[in-house]
C-alpha cells in the first residue's frame, strides 16, 4: 500500500492543491513562500494528538466565504417561511469553509491487509484500488457561531476579527473514509493505516562548545530506543553489565553515605514519627547512558575530536541519516496493535549546513535505505523532501530514472479574475514534452543535471546566447534595472537552436523570463553568409526568432516588429538588436551593439596621471581604430570576443567618471523583467 496523492483545501497558502506522491522519493521544490512548509504542517496538525488549529490556518480566500455565510445566516433569521428557512439553513451548513486534507491510498488486494484499510474504502468497483482518508476541520454549530457573533459585546468588532478569537469553540476535526464519517476513535483507525514522521528544517544543531546540544548523542539514543531489543545478544549483555555495575555502585555509595544515613535515622522525634529508612540504588538505563554519559568523538587520523569540534555539516548528515533509520526501526517494531500499514517520512530542507557533495551523499544514503528496507523487510517507505538545493534536485531527481517526474514544483500564480496570487503545484508527469518530444525532454534533463540548474528556485530567468552576455549581465542590471538585484535571477547560457527547447519548461516553472538573443542576419543571395543587418533581403538564421518569437524571417520585419509580438504569454519576452535612439543602424551581435551604442564613450578622453587618455585605447580591439566605420566591421571576431568583454568589465567607471551605456534592446528587456506589476 502506498500514498497516491495528497490534496489540501483552504489551509494557509494552500487554497486548493493536489500533490501526486512517488513510490519512493518525492521532491518538493519552489521559491520561498509558496506553501512548501504548509504541506508538512497540515499533515502534522491533523495527525497531532491535540487540536491546534486556529483561525490563522484558514487560507485568506475563506474570509469572503465566511462573510457570505453570515449573509445566509442573516437571511435565515429573517425568513418566516419554514420551508425556505430550512433550505437556507442547509445551504449555510454546506457553505461553511472547511480545512481539508485528503489522502488517497492505493492498495494491492492480494498483498495488503484490508482489515484496517477497509474503513476507508467506499467503492467496491473491482477496477478501483484506492482508499480515501479525508480529514476536515469543520464547523460543528454554524448557527450558534453566528448567533454569538450577533450578540457580541463589542459591536464594532468585524466578523473576521471576531472569528479569529472565537472560531476554535465551534470548529472540530472530523475524519471520513471516503464520504463516510468515522465516528469513534478515528485517530486510532487513522494511525493504524498511515504513519507520518517529520524532520523539520529548524533542527537543533549547535556549533558552540558549550556541549549543551548533543546532536549525535540524541540521534544515537533515539536509534537505540527504536531498535528491536528482543533476542538481541548484544543488548542483553549490555543490560546485564549495567545491572552488575549498578550493584557494585550501590555498595560503594552506601559505604560513602553510611554516616549520613545513620544521622538521618536519629532525626525521629518519637518512635511513631521516624524518617523511613533510605536505600540507594543506581538506576542505569542504556538509552540515557547513550544520551548523557557517553561522549562522541570523531576519529581523524590518530586523534579523536569531540562531537562539538566537528562541523555542523557532519553532525547534520549523521543526524538526518540516524533519524530516518530510527523512524524505520520504530515502524518495524511497533506493537501489533499500533502498527500502521505504511510509513511516510517528511524531510524539510535537508541541505542545511551541508555542502553540495554532502547533500548528494545524503540523498544517495536515503535512496539506499529505502531500497534495502523494501528488500529486507518488505516494507515500503515513502519519503517526501522539500528543498532549495539544486544539488539535491539533481541527485534525487534529474539524473536517475523517473527523473523530472519526482519533482513537484510549488509556484504562485496570479489569478486575474480574483486579482490575487494562488499557489499551484505542478507535476512533471504532466509536462508537455514528456511523451511528445522525448529528445527535448532528454536534452533538458541533461542540461539541468550538468548545470545544477537553479531554475526551480528562481524568481526570474534570463536566457542568454553566450559567455559575453553572461559576464556583462550583472553590470548591465546594475546600470538599468537595479531592482533585479533583490530577486533571485537565474541566468541560463544556452545558444542557438537549443533556446526554443526551454519554452515548455519556462512556461512550466511559471517564472518571468527574458530571452536575450542575436538577430543573426544572413544574406540568402550570398550562400547565407553572415551579413550586416541592412543588407537587402537579409534573413535571420536564429531559430528562436524564426520559430518561437516573433516568428519572423526577414530582418526588416524583425527590426520593425512591434513590442507586443515579442511576448509569449505575459511571462516570456524576447530581446534582440534594434535601432538605437540616435541612429538607424541595427547591430548584429551584442558586441556590435555595445560599440554602436557607445561611440561617444569610446571616443571620450579622461585624465590619468596628468595626461589625457582615450577610452578606446583601453580596449585592445578598438585601439588605433577609426570608430567612424561601421560597428559591424569593428565588432570582434570570435577569437577576440572575450578580450573585449573583459576590457569592458574592468574599465574603471568611477575613476574616469565615464560610463558606458547598455544597448537599447537589452535595456528594454531588463526594465520589463524588473517590473513586478502584473499587467504587461
Amino acid at each position, binding site marked *: 500500500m502506498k500514498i497516491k496523492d495528497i490534496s489540501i483545501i483552504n489551509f494557509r497558502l494552500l487554497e486548493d492543491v493536489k500533490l501526486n506522491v512517488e513510490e519512493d522519493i518525492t521532491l518538493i521544490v519552489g521559491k520561498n513562500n509558496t506553501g512548501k512548509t504548509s504541506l508538512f504542517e497540515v499533515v502534522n496538525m491533523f495527525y497531532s494528538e491535540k487540536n491546534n488549529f486556529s483561525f490563522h490556518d484558514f487560507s485568506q480566500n475563506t474570509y469572503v466565504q465566511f462573510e457570505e455565510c453570515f449573509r445566509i445566516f442573516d437571511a435565515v433569521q429573517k425568513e418566516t417561511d419554514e420551508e425556505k428557512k430550512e433550505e437556507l439553513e442547509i445551504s449555510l451548513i454546506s457553505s461553511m469553509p472547511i480545512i481539508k486534507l485528503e489522502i488517497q491510498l492505493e492498495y494491492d488486494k492480494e498483498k495488503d491487509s*484490508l482489515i484496517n484499510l*477497509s*474503513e476507508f474504502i467506499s467503492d467496491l468497483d473491482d477496477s478501483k484500488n484506492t482508499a480515501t482518508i479525508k480529514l476536515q476541520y469543520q464547523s460543528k454549530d454554524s448557527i450558534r457561531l453566528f448567533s454569538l457573533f450577533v450578540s457580541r459585546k463589542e459591536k464594532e468588532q468585524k466578523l473576521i476579527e471576531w472569528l479569529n478569537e472565537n472560531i476554535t469553540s465551534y470548529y472540530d476535526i472530523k475524519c471520513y473514509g471516503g464520504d463516510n464519517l468515522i465516528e469513534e476513535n478515528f485517530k486510532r483507525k487513522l494511525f493504524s493505516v498511515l504513519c507520518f514522521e517529520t524532520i523539520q528544517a529548524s533542527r537543533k544543531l549547535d556549533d558552540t562548545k558549550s556541549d549543551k546540544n548533543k546532536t549525535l548523542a540524541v540521534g544515537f539514543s533515539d536509534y537505540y530506543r527504536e531498535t528491536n531489543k528482543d533476542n538481541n545478544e548484544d543488548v542483553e549483555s549490555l543490560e546485564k553489565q549495567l545491572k552488575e555495575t549498578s550493584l557494585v555502585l550501590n555498595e560503594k555509595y552506601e559505604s560513602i553515605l553510611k554516616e549520613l544515613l545513620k544521622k538521618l535515622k536519629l532525626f525521629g522525634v518519637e518512635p511513631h514519627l521516624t524518617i523511613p529508612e533510605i536505600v540507594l540504588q543506581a538506576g542505569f538505563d542504556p538509552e540515557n547512558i547513550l544520551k548523557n554519559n557517553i561522549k562522541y568523538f570523531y576519529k581523524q587520523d590518530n586523534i579523536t575530536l569531540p562531537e562539538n569540534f566537528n562541523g555542523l555539516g557532519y553532525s547534520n548528515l549523521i543526524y538526518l541519516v540516524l533519524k530516518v533509520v530510527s523512524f524505520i526501526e520504530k515502524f518495524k517494531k511497533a506493537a501489533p496493535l499500533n502498527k500502521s500499514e505504511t510509513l511516510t517520512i517528511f524531510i524539510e530542507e535537508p541541505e542545511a549546513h551541508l555542502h553540495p557533495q554532502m547533500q548528494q551523499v545524503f540523498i544517495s544514503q536515503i535512496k539506499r535505505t529505502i531500497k534495502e528496507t523494501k528488500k529486507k523487510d518488505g516494507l515500503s517507505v515513502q519519503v517526501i523532501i522539500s528543498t532549495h538545493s539544486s544539488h539535491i534536485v539533481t541527485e534525487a531527481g534529474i539524473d536517475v530514472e523517473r527523473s523530472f517526474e519526482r519533482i513537484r514544483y510549488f509556484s504562485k500564480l496570479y489569478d486575474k479574475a480574483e486579482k490575487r496570487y494562488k499557489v499551484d503545484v505542478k507535476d512533471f508527469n504532466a509536462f508537455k514534452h514528456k511523451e511528445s518530444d522525448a529528445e527535448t525532454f532528454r536534452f533538458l534533463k541533461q542540461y539541468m543535471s550538468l548545470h545544477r540548474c537553479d531554475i526551480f528556485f528562481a524568481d526570474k530567468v534570463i536566457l542568454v546566447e553566450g559567455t559575453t552576455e553572461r559576464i556583462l549581465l550583472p553590470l548591465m542590471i546594475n546600470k538599468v534595472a537595479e531592482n533585479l538585484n533583490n530577486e533571485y535571477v537565474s541566468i541560463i547560457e544556452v545558444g542557438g537552436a537549443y533556446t526554443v527547447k526551454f519554452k515548455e519548461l519556462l512556461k512550466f516553472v511559471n517564472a518571468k523570463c527574458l530571452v536575450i538573443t542575436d538577430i543573426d542576419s544572413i544574406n540568402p543571395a550570398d550562400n547565407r553568409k553572415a551579413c550586416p543587418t541592412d543588407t537587402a533581403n537579409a534573413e535571420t538564421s536564429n531559430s528562436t526568432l524564426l520559430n518561437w518569437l516573433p516568428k519572423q524571417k526577414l530582418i526588416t520585419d524583425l527590426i520593425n516588429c512591434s513590442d507586443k509580438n515579442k511576448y509569449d504569454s505575459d511571462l516570456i519576452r524576447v530581446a534582440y538588436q534594434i535601432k538605437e535612439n540616435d541612429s538607424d543602424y541595427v547591430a548584429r551581435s551584442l558586441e556590435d551593439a555595445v560599440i554602436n551604442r557607445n561611440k561617444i564613450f569610446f571616443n571620450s578622453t579622461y585624465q590619468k596621471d596628468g595626461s589625457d587618455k582615450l577610452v578606446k585605447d583601453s580596449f585592445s580591439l578598438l585601439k588605433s581604430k577609426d570608430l567612424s566605420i561601421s560597428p559591424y566591421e569593428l565588432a570582434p571576431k570570435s577569437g577576440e570576443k572575450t578580450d573585449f568583454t573583459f576590457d569592458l568589465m574592468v574599465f574603471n567607471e568611477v575613476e574616469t567618471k565615464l560610463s558606458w551605456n547598455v544597448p537599447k534592446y537589452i535595456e528594454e528587456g531588463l526594465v520589463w523583467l524588473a517590473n513586478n506589476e502584473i499587467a504587461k
Partner: protein
Amino acid sequence: MKSQNNMTAFKQISQYIEESKSFILEAGAGSGKTYTLIQTLNYLIQNKGDDLKKATKKIVCITYTNVAKNEIKDRIENNELVLVSTIHEFLWGSIKQYQKQLKIELCKLNEINFEKDKAKGKTDSRYIEKLADRIDFVKKVEYNDTSFNDFENGIIQHDDVIEIAKMMYENYTLLTDIVSARYPYVFVDEYQDTAEETVFCLIDCLLKRNNKKVVIGFYGDSHQKIYDYGIGELEKYYTSNGGQIELVKKEENYRSSLSVVGLLNNFRNNIIQKVTERNSR
C-alpha cells in the same frame, strides 16, 4: 464417523474450527445449544484471541433478537473481540459505507419491486419506475426502521436490508474479501429462522469465495422454525451432499423426561435425542 459420535458436540466443533471447516450444529430442544455457542466463543477467545487482537480481526456472532444478543454479550462479559449483533445490524454495517454500489443496487431492487407490484396488479405501488434516472438526487442510502421504505429518498427498511445485502454480497467480491479479512469467524444463532437470502450471502458468497479463510458456524434446530421466511434447514449445503458445511448433532436432552424424549423421537427423524442421566429417572 463412529468415533465422532462419541465426542461431545463442542469437541467436534472445536476440531472443525482447527481444520478451518464450517459447520452446523443441529441441536434439539433442551439440548443446551446456546451453551455450546458460548463454549465455542470462549474457545476462540482463549485460543485465538491474541492473534485476532494483533490483526485487529473480530469474531461475529449473529443473533435473531436483541434479547438473545444481550444474553450472549453478558455471557462472554462483553468481550470486545466478539461483535454480537442482529442479522440486520451486521449486514447493514458491512455494506453501508459503499454508497456508490448501494445506489446501483437500490435502483435494481426498485425495478424488481415495481415489476412485482405490477404483476400483482397492484395500483398503489410505492415504487416508481426507473429510479436510476433520479438516483443522483438521492444523497445517501439509509436504513431506517421507524418509517416506511422510501427509495426515492434513499430510505430502506428491515426487509430491504436483507435483499440489498444479498445483491451486494453477490455482485461485489471486494466486499466479501473485506468481510472475510475482518471477520474470520461468523456464527449464526437460530439459523433456521434466518432468511434464505442471508444464508446465500454467508455461504454462497462469503464462504465459497473465501474457503479456509473464514469459518461459519450455524446453531439451531430445523424443527424449531418460527417464522415463515426462515430457511428452515440447510441440508443442501452439508458436505454429505457435496457442500461445505459439516454436520454436528447434539442429541442430549437435559430438559425433558424419557417419555417426552421418546415422543419427540417418534415424530422427527433427523436427530435421535438421548436422555441424560440427570433426567432419566
